[in-house]
Each structure stands twice: as structure tokens, then as C-alpha cells.
């Protein structure tokens, strides 16, 4: 064989290929994209919409990462800076290849009297993009966005200087700005727990305040002092109690003064005429207690209601959900109390619209068998409410909140009997606490929709439902919940949220990771006996390890030779081998193969460029909450074999 051509070809190919070391693999800087096309993060949907409507400018940023294929857009340069400093950020996204920030050099930015940033609406001014390395940032000026302090970038030093001359602050370059901190980053576990405690304390105060209405002296006794309940309410002076002795009463009544309507418990039975609400409260600090109510109207969405709120963005939602029939309707009745009332209803149990600080305590609502025929146990419309110690059987949703920011829903029982839709349903509701509720047989136990922020979902138990807990939005806290025997245990379309100390047992799919951008922190949860521990459908490979500690997986192969509480082998709950360990004979043998071990080592690198899935790099050797896990596993085995 003549070797010359062979050698020549090999030498030539190697030589030319070696040129790859001379080429800069990073390539050219990509051009900025339209902000709407990015994966957007930072600030809530409501806040950005409001800012847009009011013409408030938010200095934005967009980043091309070395390890993440989607362009990430940040509402607020401050949000970007804080995210870059977050522990685990580099690990998941790589380093920023290119960052663009809003350029106000040609926009003539101004501040309004509240310091909110704006630009004149004229064709000669516009906001462009400038590479962060080339920008001049004004920090510490008077400029604000709805999210607080802001940084204003300019492509020209001169423009930045004139902004400083008008509104103060100083000019910094990107390297200096990058190392700053603006406090918009995700809260720590301890901060979330403090928030949970603060919500409980707030609720305790609201309950104590509202319960004072139950100490009002009796001024009128129905039957003795007045012939009917309506007449009694008419006669009763403010801050007194109308007592309704045991018996049946046909009544649809309205409380329009701070008066307490009180019966003797279930023995006092008020029957509405099958239309409208049985009791309506239109005064602050009204109270309804110790009654049984039935004969509620069946209307969910009345067609003849109009209000003076027509200009509000959610007017259709207000009419659609806030004016249905109910056992008790609180209408602009701040600080009112509904306690120990039993309600049979084809529509709502309690409606609370524009009634802040109202309390629903110890109520029982028997709704319809089929959720499509009923409505809400408690309907919260634009109110901050406490709903506690109540039982909701059937109906559509146990508790539905629309703009219920700060609401506390705790210690309730939702009994779906496979006919309920959602146990707790939050819409456009941020900063709410859903704690220690028990939901069974619902479509979803607790669901948070519409991209809100800072919701707290802790200590709930959801069983035998289609989905246990499904939290959307961002910067939320899902902790200490127990989900047993559902189709999905936890679902996480959320971003930058924390999932910890949850007990996930006996579900078809333990945890459904559903966000495109992998910023949830999932650690210190216990997984056992799920048909599949985790499914992931969108986004890149997620790393479920925080500060070197992951989750407990009952079936995870490997052992803890050095006794640090963490298995020596990473666990891939979505992987072809690890996902079968425990239910396919031989999978655990295969999982210990040296070949597989050798390959696993490097496969956790560059997660952003990997196919979707989940890897736990430091699976825990012991459960986080062993007692709760043991109880959940015990109840799962004795329960129905699904």
C-alpha cells in the first residue's frame, strides 16, 4: 500500500482541524432580541402591567448565557444583578456571554413627583439597548420603579451625567454594578418562615378583633321582642346581639349596622326562599354566628348586576365571580365575622367582596356533588380575609380568592368526594398564606394561578386528588406539605420559589417540574413510593441541590460511606435507570455498575445544555421528616390500592 496519500490526508485534516484552537468559539456577540421574546423574570405580571398602563419605565436587561439557550429578560437591571449573585446561578446558567440593558441616552428620562421613571412620549425619544460592558449606570439616584430602587443605564457618559445633575446618584460601570445587591433576590428559608409567622400573628389579631362582636349584649330576642328576624335586626341598636332561639325561620335578611345575628347552633335553622343570599351584611363589623342556613339561591353569575367599577381591568371577573348567591354575603363589611355557621348551598357558602379583615371561622359548607353545578365555599373578592377551622364538602372550589393579597387560609378541611375542583384556588393573589389545610378527592388540592408572587403554602395535606399542590408565580414558599396518593403530588410551574420539607408519597408522579426557566430551589424534600418520582417536560436539566444537600429518595442507590448524611452518588429521578430503581427488578444492580458510575460523573456538568430532566447531586441518606414520612407511607399502604 502506498502510504503517502493516507498520511498526507490525515496530516492535512489534523492540521486544518487544529485551526479550531485559534478560532474564538464564542463567536460574535448576538444582537439584542425583542423583550417580549425572552423568558421574562423579575417583578410580577400585575406590577409590569400596571407600570405599562401608567407609563412607568422599568430599565430592563436581557442576557445570553453560556449554558442556557433561551434569552432571559429581566424586569429591572436590579433583578438581574441580584440573580447573578444568587448561589447556584452560574451552575445552572453558566456565565453571561452578553448582557444588554435598556439605553436611555436618547430617551430624555424624567422622574414624576413620586420618583417613578418615565420617558416623554415623542417620536424623537426612544429606549434602545446597550451592551452592559459599554453602559454607564446611574446608581443611588431618586429614580424608582414599582419594585423600588432602580439603576438607569446610558450608552453615553454625557447623558448619564446630565441625569445625575437633575436627579442625583453617581455613575458606575458594569463591573461595579454587578457586585452590588438590591435585595430583590429570593428569600431565605428563615425569611419565609418569619413571613409565615407574621401571617399567623396577623390572622390571630383579626380573629380576636372580629370575635369581640360575639361578646355584644343581647338586645332583641326573636319571637319574644320582635316577630321576625328582619324586625329584630331593625329594632336592635348598634353593637348589640339579635338572638334567634332554636326553630325554623323563613328569612332572607340584611344586616346594615354593626350588629351580631346569633342562633343556638344547628337548632336555629334559617331557610331562604331559594333566591339570593340568606344573610347579607353591608356594614362594617357585622357578625353572623351559630346558625344553620339553607334555601340559598342557585345563581353563580347574576346577569342584572352593574356597579360603578366599570373602568377597572378586572370588571368582568368581579361580575363573574363576586355576585353569586351565598349563605352569607359580606358586601363592604370590613372586620365582620362569620362563625360556626352551617350552610347547604347550590352556589356559594360565603361571599366576601370588598371586606378587608373579615373572618370566616368554623363554618361548614355543604356544596353540590358535581363541581360544575356548584360554586365556591368561600369566595374572596378583593379582600384580605381569614378563613380558618372550616369544612367544605363538595362544590366547585373550597376557597377562591381574587385579588385576596395577604389572605390567610388555615386549618380547613376540604372534602371533595371526587366531585370538587380545587381545594384552595388563588387568582391574582400574592402574599397569601395557605397553611395546615387538608384536602381529599379534589381535582387539585391547592392551586395558585396567574403569576403572583410571595405566596406561602405550608403544612397542607392533600390526598387522593388528581393533583396535590400546584403553585405558579414566583418567589413563593412551598414547605412541609404532605401529598399522598394523587396523580401528581407537587406541580411547579413557578420560578425562583423554594420547595422544601415536603413529604411526597405514593403518587403516580411525585413532582412535576414544569417551568422553562430552572430557578426553583428544590431541596430537603422526602420522596417515597411514587410510581415515578419526577417528571420534567420543559426546560433544561435542573439541579435539585442547594448548598450541597439535595432531597431524600427512598429508592436512591448508593451509600453514605463518609457519614456526611449525603449519598456518594448523584441521583437522576428522571433518568432511564434511576427512575426504575425500586420497581423494576435489576435496576438497582444496573445502577451500581462502574460503567454507569464513570459516565454519571461528568453528566451533571453544563446542565443548561442538557436535555430536560432532574439531577440531585447530593441525595440525602436519611429522610428530612422521618415521622411524617412514616405516617404517610403507612396511610398510603392501608389506603386504596390505586
Amino acid at each position, binding site marked *: *500500500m*502506498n*502510504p*503517502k496519500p*493516507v*498520511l498526507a490526508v*490525515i496530516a492535512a*485534516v*489534523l492540521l486544518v*482541524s*487544529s485551526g*479550531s*484552537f485559534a*478560532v474564538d*468559539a*464564542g*463567536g460574535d456577540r*448576538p444582537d439584542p*432580541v*425583542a423583550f417580549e*421574546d*425572552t*423568558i421574562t423574570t423579575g417583578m410580577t405580571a400585575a406590577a409590569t402591567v400596571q407600570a405599562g398602563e401608567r407609563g412607568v419605565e422599568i430599565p430592563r436587561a436581557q442576557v*445570553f*448565557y*453560556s*449554558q*442556557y*439557550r*433561551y*434569552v432571559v429578560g429581566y424586569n429591572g437591571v436590579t433583578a438581574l444583578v441580584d440573580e447573578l449573585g444568587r448561589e447556584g446561578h*452560574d451552575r445552572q446558567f*453558566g*456565565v453571561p*456571554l452578553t448582557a444588554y440593558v435598556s439605553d436611555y441616552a436618547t430617551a430624555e428620562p424624567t422622574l414624576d413627583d413620586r420618583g417613578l421613571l418615565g420617558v416623554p412620549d415623542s417620536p424623537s425619544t426612544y429606549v434602545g439597548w446597550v451592551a452592559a460592558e459599554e453602559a454607564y449606570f446611574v446608581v443611588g439616584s431618586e429614580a424608582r420603579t414599582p419594585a423600588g430602587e432602580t439603576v438607569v443605564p446610558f450608552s453615553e457618559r454625557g447623558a448619564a451625567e446630565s441625569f445625575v445633575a437633575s436627579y442625583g446618584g453617581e455613575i458606575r460601570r458594569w463591573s461595579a454594578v454587578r457586585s452590588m445587591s438590591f435585595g430583590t433576590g429570593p428569600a431565605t428559608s428563615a425569611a419565609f418562615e418569619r413571613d409565615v409567622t407574621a401571617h399567623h400573628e396577623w390572622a390571630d389579631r383579626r380573629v380576636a378583633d372580629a370575635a369581640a362582636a360575639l361578646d355584644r349584649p343581647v338586645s332583641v330576642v326573636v319571637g319574644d321582642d320582635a316577630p321576625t328576624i328582619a324586625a329584630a335586626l331593625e329594632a336592635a341598636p348598634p353593637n348589640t346581639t339579635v338572638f334567634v332561639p332554636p326553630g325554623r325561620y323563613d328569612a332572607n335578611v340584611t344586616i346594615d349596622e354593626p350588629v351580631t345575628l346569633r342562633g343556638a347552633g344547628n337548632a336555629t335553622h334559617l331557610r331562604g326562599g331559594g333566591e339570593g343570599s340568606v344573610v347579607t351584611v353591608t356594614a362594617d363589623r357585622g357578625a353572623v354566628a351559630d346558625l344553620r342556613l339553607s334555601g340559598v339561591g342557585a345563581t353563580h353569575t347574576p346577569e342584572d348586576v352593574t356597579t360603578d367599577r366599570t373602568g377597572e381591568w378586572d370588571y368582568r371577573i368581579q361580575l363573574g365571580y363576586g355576585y353569586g348567591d351565598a349563605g352569607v354575603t359580606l358586601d363592604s363589611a370590613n372586620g365582620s365575622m362569620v362563625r360556626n355557621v352551617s350552610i347547604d348551598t347550590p352556589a356559594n357558602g360565603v361571599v366576601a367582596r370588598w371586606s378587608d379583615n373579615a373572618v370566616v371561622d368554623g363554618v361548614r359548607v355543604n356544596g353540590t356533588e358535581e363541581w360544575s353545578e356548584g360554586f365556591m365555599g368561600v369566595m374572596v373578592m378583593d379582600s384580605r380575609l381569614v378563613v380558618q377551622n372550616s369544612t367544605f364538602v363538595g362544590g366547585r372550589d373550597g376557597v377562591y380568592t381574587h385579588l385576596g393579597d395577604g389572605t390567610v387560609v388555615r386549618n380547613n378541611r376540604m372534602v371533595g368526594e371526587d366531585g370538587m375542583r380545587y381545594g384552595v384556588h388563588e387568582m391574582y393573589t400574592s402574599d397569601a398564606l395557605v397553611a395546615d389545610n387538608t384536602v381529599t378527592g379534589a381535582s387539585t388540592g391547592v392551586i395558585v394561578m396567574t403569576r403572583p408572587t410571595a405566596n406561602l403554602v405550608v403544612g397542607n395535606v392533600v390526598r387522593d386528588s388528581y393533583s396535590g399542590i400546584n403553585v405558579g408565580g414566583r418567589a413563593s414558599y412551598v414547605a412541609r406539605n404532605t401529598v399522598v396518593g394523587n396523580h401528581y403530588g407537587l406541580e411547579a410551574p413557578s420560578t425562583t420559589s423554594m420547595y422544601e420539607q415536603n413529604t411526597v408519597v405514593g403518587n403516580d408522579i411525585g413532582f412535576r417540574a414544569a417551568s*422553562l426557566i430552572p430557578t426553583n430551589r428544590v431541596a430537603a424534600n422526602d420522596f417515597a413510593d411514587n410510581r415515578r418520582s419526577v417528571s420534567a417536560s420543559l426546560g433544561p436539566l435542573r439541579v435539585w441541590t442547594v448548598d450541597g444537600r439535595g432531597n431524600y429518595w427512598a429508592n436512591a442507590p448508593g451509600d453514605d460511606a463518609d457519614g456526611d448524611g449525603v449519598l456518594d452518588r448523584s441521583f437522576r429521578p428522571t433518568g*432511564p435507570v434511576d427512575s426504575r430503581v425500586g420497581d423494576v427488578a435489576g435496576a438497582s444492580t444496573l445502577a451500581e455498575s462502574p460503567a454507569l458510575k*464513570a*459516565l454519571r*460523573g*461528568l*453528566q451533571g*456538568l*453544563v446542565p*443548561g*445544555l*442538557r*436535555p430536560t430532566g432532574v439531577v440531585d447531586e447530593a441525595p440525602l441518606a436519611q429522610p428530612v421528616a422521618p415521622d411524617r414520612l412514616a405516617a404517610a407511607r403507612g396511610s398510603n399502604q392501608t389506603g386504596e390500592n390505586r
Partner: protein
Amino acid sequence: MNRQSIDQLFAVAGRELTTVARTRAFLALAAGFGAIVGVLGWTGEAVGYVPLVLDLLTPVEVLVPALALAVGYRAILGDRERGELDVLRTYPVSRPTYVLGVYLGRASALVVAVAVPLVAVAALVPLFGGVGTTVIASHGAADSPVLYLRFVVLSAAFALVLAAAATAISAAATTTRTGLVLAVALGLALVIGLDAGIVAGLAGGVVPDEALGAALSLSPNSAFRGLVLSTVVGGVESSAPVSSAAGVVGLLAWLAGSLAIATLTVWSES
């Protein structure tokens, strides 16, 4: 080197290529390597070039030494056992010419066997690739075929160095048994021994922390791994693993040293 030596060099190299091409065992090994690379690329669902490199790094590090030693350990040994070496010595062929010729022949076959499957499996990336949505703006991140090409070149260089080591064994060994023993020993040393030695040295304090980079360059496997991590993965991950220069020097030293040993031991010049 004069004109005549060059002709002799190519004659020897051509003879080696013919031998290799006719060796069914080599073809089977090369096919096996290709199959493993293909399976790994397929099961890893590589959606990017850098992840594919990371998936293939360990297999290449283990399999290329095995392939190189299998291809090379009998190269000169075979000539010696069949008595062809004695015949060759009746010709005016110098030791370097003969050794280099053998090396070129075997090494080029090895490079082809290593590089072709690696290049082929890269075609899976666009096949699996795409980020799956058109709604959101996406980009290539720091991932690039250029980075993968670097990996292929480094793998080829790694193969060239190991082919030299195998040639040295085949020159130094006098019987099939010693050749086999030497090949297995070197294989184990490359894949496990040298790195384990460095770990032991670190633990025992023999290797100070500052000398770790230099110590790693003494092991061809570590030098290769370091070069891949720094030139391919380095730009994507956030921290650079080792200095590249030491690794290059280490590999070159192994190449030159092995060929020198082969030249000195092939026959005694007397």
C-alpha cells in the same frame, strides 16, 4: 534524513498500513469503539456539542489506550518473532527510520479509527438538537461545533501519543508474553495507576499543591482530560481546570520519550 531514508520510511509505513488493514482483530476493535461511541451519543440524547464531549470524555480516555495498545503492542514484536527483523537488518535501514515508519503506519490507522466515529457521532447533535420552541428567542449559548472539533483533535493527539507508547512496548518486548504483560501494565497505569499515584502523592504530601498541575501533565490521561476541560468545557463552565501548556508539554514528552525508547531497544547498533 536523506532521500533514501524517506523512501524507506514510507515503505515501512505502507507495509504497516497493509498489515493493519488486513488484521481482522483491529477492524473488530475499531468497529467496537465506533459502536460504543455511537450508543453513548444516542442514549445521552446529546442536544449540544459540549455535553456530548462530556459524555464521551471518560469512554475515550479508557478506550483509546486499550485500542492503541491492542493495535500497537505486536507491531515490532511480530517482526522480531517471525525473524523479519533480522532480515530487515540486512538492508541499510537505520533504527529511527524503521521505528518511525512502523509508528506512522500504526498511528495513522489508529487516528482514523478514533477520529471517524467521533466525527460521525457529532451528526446526532443537530438530529436531537433544537430547543423545541419558536415562541421564545433562543441562541446557541457557548456551545459550538468548533469546540467539538477541538475535542476530536485532542483525541487524535492522545491516540498519537499512545500509539508511540505501544510502539515502545513492542520494541522493548522480546516475547509475546512480555509484550502482553507490558501492554496490560501500561494500560492499567494510564487509566488508573498514574492518577491514583498522584492522589496518593497528594495525600502523603509528596506532591505539594503547587506541583499538582505539573504532576498531572506526567499522566497522558490527565493531560488529555485537562486539555479537554480547559479548551472545550472551560468557556462554558465557569472555572478553568488546569493550565494547557503543561499538558501539551507532558504529551509531547511521552511521544518523544516513547519513540526514543523504541529506537534504542529495537535492536542494538553494533
